[in-house]
């Protein structure tokens, strides 16, 4: 766990943006490290939760968006549940994710933003998730076709994965919600 601090032109700018996006007060953190102790992926990351917060407090800039925890995090929210000062670190990670995607920062491995987009694309089309389509598209786009091929036949046979797209949803409501989100944030690409 080594923290490298780089001087920024506008120190604290990222902290401000994250605080606003996540609706948190990061100076409430006094490094008790309960978040990092409870984090189920702390042993697989270079910067655990408490260190990310400390780096933000010290004025970290966009280099922080390369932190591997952003894409290793499981959104389990153990950090938030155990924080004595109620800092919602899960929301901090969501904010960092959105910023990293916005600024086109490279990811270590896997492609969660792509998966999320493909997943939400099916919701946009059918009003509900069509997991077979989202998974197939993800595998095609990432070239990771072989993985899980051994499981699909059994899952399809058992009816543990639907073959046909979902039906019955009020699609117009969902379309309106996505349209509004795209207008507000420019998330729809």
């Amino acid at each position, binding site marked *: 766990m080594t923290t490298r601090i780089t001087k920024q032109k506008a120190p604290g700018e990222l902290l401000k943006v994250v605080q606003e996006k996540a609706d948190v007060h990061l100076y409430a953190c006094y490094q008790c490290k309960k978040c990092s102790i409870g984090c189920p992926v702390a042993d697989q990351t270079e910067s655990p939760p408490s260190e990310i917060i400390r780096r933000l407090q010290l004025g970290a800039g966009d280099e922080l968006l390369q932190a591997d925890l952003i894409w*290793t995090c499981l959104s389990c*929210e153990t950090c938030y*549940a155990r924080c004595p000062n109620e800092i919602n670190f*899960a929301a901090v990670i969501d904010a960092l994710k959105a910023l990293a995607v916005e600024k086109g920062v490279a990811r270590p491995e896997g*492609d969660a933003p792509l998966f*999320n987009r493909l997943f939400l694309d099916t919701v946009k089309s059918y009003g509900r998730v069509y997991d077979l389509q989202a998974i197939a598209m993800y595998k095609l786009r990432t070239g990771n076709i072989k993985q899980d091929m051994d499981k699909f036949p059994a899952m399809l046979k058992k009816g*543990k994965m639907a073959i046909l797209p979902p039906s019955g949803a009020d699609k117009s*409501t*969902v379309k309106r919600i996505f349209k509004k989100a795209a207008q507000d944030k420019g998330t729809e690409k």
Partner: protein
Amino acid sequence: MKYAYYPGCSAHSTARDMHESCLAVAKALGVELNEIKGWTCCGASAAHQTNRELAASLASANLLLAKKMGMDMVVTCAACYNRSKVANYEILNSEEMRQSVADSLDQAYDGSVQVRHFVEILSKDLGVAALRKKIVNPLKGLKVASYYGCYLVRPPEATGFDDPENPTILEGLIDVMGGTNVEWSGKVDCCGGMQNLTRTEITVRRSAAVIEMAQAAGAECIVVACPMCQISLDVRQADMEKLLGKKYDMPIIYVTQLVGLALGIAPKELGFDKLMVSPTAVLKAAKGAA
């Protein structure tokens, strides 16, 4: 007891067993579940990672439909439960969020619909005493590890499900059915389900750690209330064997499947045939149901 029922997208795909066993149990106990007409996706984990307003609006669309039905909304998927509860919490605590959701839905929603997980209906509304009277196939001491995972208990101020670090609702149900609760410390650990397709190895290792803890405690099966936990712990056991060289053979059962067995419902109606790891040990325990 009448409720608006929100099945969630997995009910017709990866968690049909959860949905079918929930409906069968509700029917057997006289709990009326009225499916919300036209329900849509709650946004799951993809929406909140993308944009908070989108996540709250998608979940609120269904809450608004339940409000029009004038009933509490019952959910059996822990992830949908979580997203719906968080949407309510954010709307109740932020004027800005309430406005954003209203703009997005073109209708106001005040965050007032009560969201309940089906196990809360069993344990609180119906109550364990009433449930006890309906048990015809006691579980004969089957050793069960109750696993809550993340979505039911966190964030505590939004879900308010039970003690967030040591919930005991599931254990109460196991107890009434004549099962034995094993003592273990993994019940609110994360299964790693969110990285199931994106960083699979993380999920495989996390889920293996959970199963290992339950096995060390002497559990013959793990009981879950979340489709993401079920898939990670059940379907990924084949990958655990490949990656870690260990074969766990640990059945991962929805709590509603187990309740159904104890109520004397046929295993097929409860979706036991859909599990990847064979549930023979569990079925044997409730002999007479098969």
